[in-house]
């Protein structure tokens, strides 16, 4: 491997992509719309208690499916990697407040299943009937690089025909008051990428040299994924100890 020449250490094809931007105030309407899912309804119970980031992630996912014309495709043998960031800040603030002020209060049963790091991936697995692996990665700072690294690792493993990589975050991050209500205008952003083994003009690569630019968040990535252009474009994230991850899209 000629690392000086910048030859890829690993590469996979980006076969479909979608993005979503969801202001917090619109989440419930989108939740209901997702359950209808353009004539292919998913049970509302699957998304009724989902975190807002999960809702944005599902919206990005369905956008990717629609854009690729994959509405009838089965993803049963695929895998899912989900990468949310700071899930549960608002609900745990509210829970803590109630727990500390009301001795009779008990914790909602929906927090653990819906606001843990695996929750986004598991919900995708549920709604798309994905029966391959599903797991969460990242969860905190630099989670986009975590997502790309884990997604690429899964895609090149050869164990599944494809992997759905769904990345989400709030930007700005909510600053809740004591009751958990955000004091700022919060927007959930998400990107969904279908990663398949092999190469293509749209691809995700691990390259040996460190990236020059800084790692940015999902909000910027969502714009990059959605922006129509005939120019080849690349987006880079440094990966400590390895080099850089580069997403190239036409």
């Amino acid at each position, binding site marked *: 491997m000629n690392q000086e020449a910048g030859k890829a250490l690993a590469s996979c094809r980006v076969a479909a992509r979608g993005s979503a931007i969801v202001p917090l105030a619109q989440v419930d309407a989108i939740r209901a719309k997702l359950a209808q899912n353009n004539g292919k309804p998913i049970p509302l119970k699957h998304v009724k208690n989902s975190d807002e980031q999960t809702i944005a992630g599902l919206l990005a996912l369905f956008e990717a499916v629609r854009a690729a014309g994959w509405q009838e495709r089965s993803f049963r043998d695929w895998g899912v990697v989900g990468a949310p960031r700071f899930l549960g*800040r608002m609900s*745990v603030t509210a829970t803590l407040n109630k727990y500390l002020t009301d001795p009779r209060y008990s914790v909602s049963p929906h927090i653990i*299943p819906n606001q843990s790091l*695996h929750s986004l991936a*598991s919900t995708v697995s549920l709604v798309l009937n994905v029966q391959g692996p599903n797991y969460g990665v990242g969860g905190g700072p630099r989670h986009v690089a975590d997502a790309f690294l884990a997604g690429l690792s899964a895609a090149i493993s050869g164990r599944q025909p494809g992997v759905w990589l769904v990345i989400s975050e709030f930007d700005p991050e909510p600053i809740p008051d004591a009751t958990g209500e955000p004091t700022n205008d919060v927007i959930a952003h998400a990107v969904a990428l279908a990663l398949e083994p092999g190469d293509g003009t749209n691809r995700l690569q691990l390259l040996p040299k460190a990236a020059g630019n800084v790692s940015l968040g999902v909000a910027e990535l969502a714009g990059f994924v959605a922006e129509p252009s005939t120019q080849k474009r690349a987006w880079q994230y440094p990966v400590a100890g390895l080099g850089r991850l580069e997403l190239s899209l036409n």
Partner: protein
Amino acid sequence: MRKPGIAITGIGTANPLGVSWEETARNLLAGRSGVRTLTRFDASRLGTRFAGQIDTIPAPPGIVAADFARLERMDQLLLWCASDALRRSGLWDKRSSLRLGIVLGNGGEWLRLWEAEGLAGGTRIRNPALDTETSAQALRRRLELNGPVLTVAAACASGNYAFGEARRWLDAGWVDVCLAGAVDLTVSPLGLAGFGSLRALSTRNDAPEKASRPFDKERDGFVMAEGGALYVLERVDDARKRGADIHAEIVGFGASSDAFHLIIPSSDAQPAANAMSQALADAGISYEQVGYINAHATSTPIGDPGEARAVKMVFGETASRVPISSTKSMTGHLICAAAAVEVIACIAAFNNQAIPPTINLDELDPECAGLCHIANEAQPRRVEFALSNSFGFGGSNTCLALQKSE
């Protein structure tokens, strides 16, 4: 042809049965329970008032005890497990000169951190600017490591996913050495209340050490526990070349999803069976070569019979002859860290050629019959290969295949 395994050359742990892998293994083989009434915080308002707990996390050599005591508890746990594993592997002094990565199973780290800080009177949760690095990223910084770092989570299957990912990094040549494993400190007021609201926990408050009873007819839910384990993983050839002691080899991994429910395991055992079959195929071994199954078996009414069905699907008539036991009967359920700690049970089986028991298995649930349960006392058996099942919320099913070191 079987592909080379990944060598385990160092182990660091803190869990309800000990703060070293040897102590943990001894207690597992002795059938001791690490579950007891909660003492670390007031649990009087909770339905479940016991858990598997760690008393004190030891300070690693070279760290002033007072400085260590000031660290957040998760950072203490990680530093202890990582430094003990690296020291025992003989790589401590070389750690900064190696491409040494970290893959850490840790599923609710922010929820737990925000809770701990909030219950202590802080408001960190309302100040996002303070959340600047994950626990795994902090560990990398503190240990001055140079490789990539990743947090993974699949609820109770997190540890096995961490092993699977680390193995891929080593196979791909992305790292030379990898610290992999999982940690969990969800034994907390909100953690217990949250799982309590899910009606997943045992409420046998009058006999905590009897509460975790996988496969037993009288089980009434799982018992929460805390702790973790980290392992130094290397390619087998590299480990042999440097003369490292190899505790065991990771030789296979399988993973599947139920795609059924975010909490409830599917009544169809096929996805769980698929994970086991994948691990066997990945390891290049037959089910007839398996000498021990470390069951996921959490002591829940639905989960245990489902796993029993999955084992019978994979092993057929042989299921009645392959020893199976549940570590959680002694440790409690370490949630995200369960799979990581349960590898110690497999290593104990390899080293001692004896199977750690499922304690509190007094009356077998007929729905869990047809398996070779090792009830209440360790039994001598020849073990060359072991499977370790871990299933989790979100419909995750995983299985790790391990081999005794040569």
